[in-house]
C-alpha cells in the first residue's frame, strides 16, 4: 500500500508542484538587492573609514604631537615629525598615513587623548597616481574640516559608551 501511494504521489508530481508554489511565493517577496550607487545601507556611527584630523571650534588644530597613535599603530602606517611652533607649543610638522599599510583597526582614534585623529564614514575614494596613497597633514586637516559636522554627530551619538 505504501509503495502504491508513493508511486501515485510521484506520478501526480505533487512534490514538484509544491516546489513550484514555493518559488512562485518568493517571486513576489520584496527583494534584498541594494542598488548601491543610488542607494546606501545605513552605517554605524562607529564605522571606520577614511582618516581625518580635527580642529577645535576656534580653528586651532587638536593634535599635540604626543605620537601615541604612531606608537599604537599595528601596521606602522602613521609617520609623525614634531617641532615647537613659533608660540612655543609642540605641534606636528609632518603627519602622514599610508593608506596601503593601514588596516582600519581604529586604534589611533582610541589612543588619541584629544580626539584629533578620527576615522570618518567616507569609504568611497580612489588613487590615480602612485604616492597618492600617503595622505599628508594638510589633506587630513581638509578632510576633517569638510566632514566636521558628521564626525561630531557620530562622536556625540557614541559618547555614552566612550
Amino acid at each position, binding site marked *: 500500500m505504501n509503495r502504491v501511494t508513493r508511486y501515485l504521489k510521484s506520478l501526480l508530481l505533487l512534490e514538484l508542484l509544491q516546489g513550484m508554489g514555493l*518559488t512562485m511565493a518568493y517571486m513576489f517577496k520584496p527583494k534584498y538587492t541594494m542598488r548601491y550607487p543610488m542607494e546606501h545601507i545605513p552605517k554605524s556611527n562607529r564605522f571606520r573609514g577614511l582618516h581625518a584630523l580635527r580642529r577645535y571650534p576656534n580653528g586651532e588644530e587638536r593634535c599635540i604631537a604626543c605620537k601615541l597613535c604612531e606608537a599604537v599603530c599595528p601596521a606602522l602606517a602613521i609617520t609623525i615629525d614634531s617641532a615647537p611652533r613659533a608660540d612655543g607649543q609642540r605641534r606636528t610638522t609632518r603627519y602622514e598615513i599610508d593608506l596601503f599599510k593601514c588596516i582600519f583597526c581604529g586604534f589611533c582614534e582610541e589612543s588619541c587623548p584629544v580626539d584629533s585623529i578620527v576615522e570618518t564614514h567616507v569609504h568611497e575614494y580612489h588613487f590615480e597616481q602612485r604616492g597618492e596613497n600617503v595622505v599628508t597633514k594638510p589633506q587630513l586637516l581638509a578632510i576633517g574640516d569638510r566632514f566636521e559636522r558628521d564626525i561630531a554627530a557620530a562622536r556625540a551619538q557614541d559618547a555614552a559608551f566612550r
Partner: protein
Amino acid sequence: MLAELLLVLWTLAKVLAIVLPLVIAVAMFVYWERKVIGWMHVRMGPNQIGPLGLMQAFADVVKLLLKEIVVPTNANRFLFFLAPMLALVPALAAWAVIPFSDGLVLANINAGVLYLLAMTSMGVYGIILAGWASNSRYALLGAMRSAAQVVSYELAMGLALVCVLVLAGSLNLSDIVTAQSGGLLHWFWLPLLPMAVVYFISGVAETNRAPFDVAEGESEIVAGFHVEYSGSAFALFFLAEYANMILVAFLTSILFLGGWLSPFPATWGLIGHGSFFWLLAKAFVVAFLFLWFRASFPRYRYDQIMRLGWKVFIPIALVWVLVAGLLKYFHIVAPGA
C-alpha cells in the same frame, strides 16, 4: 513571370512578418527569463540598461555580434560554421505552419504536424555537428547526451501527438484548432490531460532546458555542445534554443489549449471571439512555465532522464492512445462540437 515574382516577394514579406517579431520576441524572452528567475531568487534581475532594464537584451545582442569568433585548432571549420545554421534554420522553418489565427498561417499544409515533427527533430543535427566539429571532449559529451535525450523524448512526444490526431481527425494544425471549438471544456487538455503534461515536459526535454539541460550542464561539462562557440556563432545557438522554446509554447497552446479560440462564450463580445491575442496569451503562460521550471528544479541525473522518458512517459502515452481511441469511437469527445 511578373505574377510569379510578386508571389515570391509577397511570400518573402510574410516570412519576414513572422521572423522579425520572432527575433524580437526571443530578445524580450531572454530579458523576461532573467527578470523572472531574478525575482524567484529574491533578486531584481537586469535593471540598469534602459527603463527597467528593457534594453538589456539588445545590449547583449550588440555585444555578441561585436565579439570575435574563435575557431579552435583542429576544428573542422566547415562543419563548425555550418552547425549553428543547422540549429537555427529548422527552429525558424517550423514557424511556417503555425496558425496564428483563423486563416492567418503562412503555409496551411495538410501534413502540418508531420512537418513540425520533422523540423523539431532536425535541430538536433546542428547540436551533434557542433559537438563533433569543435574538437573538444566537453562539446562531444554534450552533443551525445543531447542526441540520446532528443531521441528518447521524441517517442513520447510523437505518441502524445497521435492522441491529438485521433481526436481531431486531421494533421492540419488549423483543423486541429477548429476541432477544439466550443469552449474551455472542449479543448483537448481535458480529455488528454496526461498527454498535455507529457507533451509539454517532452518539449522541455527536447529544447534542452532545465531540468533536462544535461546537454549544457554548466556544472558538469561547462557548456556542453556550444562550449567552443563565441560571438555571433554562439548567438545563433542561443536564438535557436529560445525560438524552439517559444515554438513549444505555441504548439502546446495550439494542440491542447485551443489555439486562438477564446475560453469565453461568443456572446461576450470582443473577448468572446477567438483572435491572435488569445493564442499569444496562452503561449505566454506556457512559456512562463519554462522559466518557472528553471528557477525551481535541479538538473536531472542522466540515467533518471532516460528512466523518465522510456519507463514512465512512453507507457503512459501508449495507454492514452488507447483511451483516446475509445473516447473517439464511443463519441465521448466529438470534434468541433
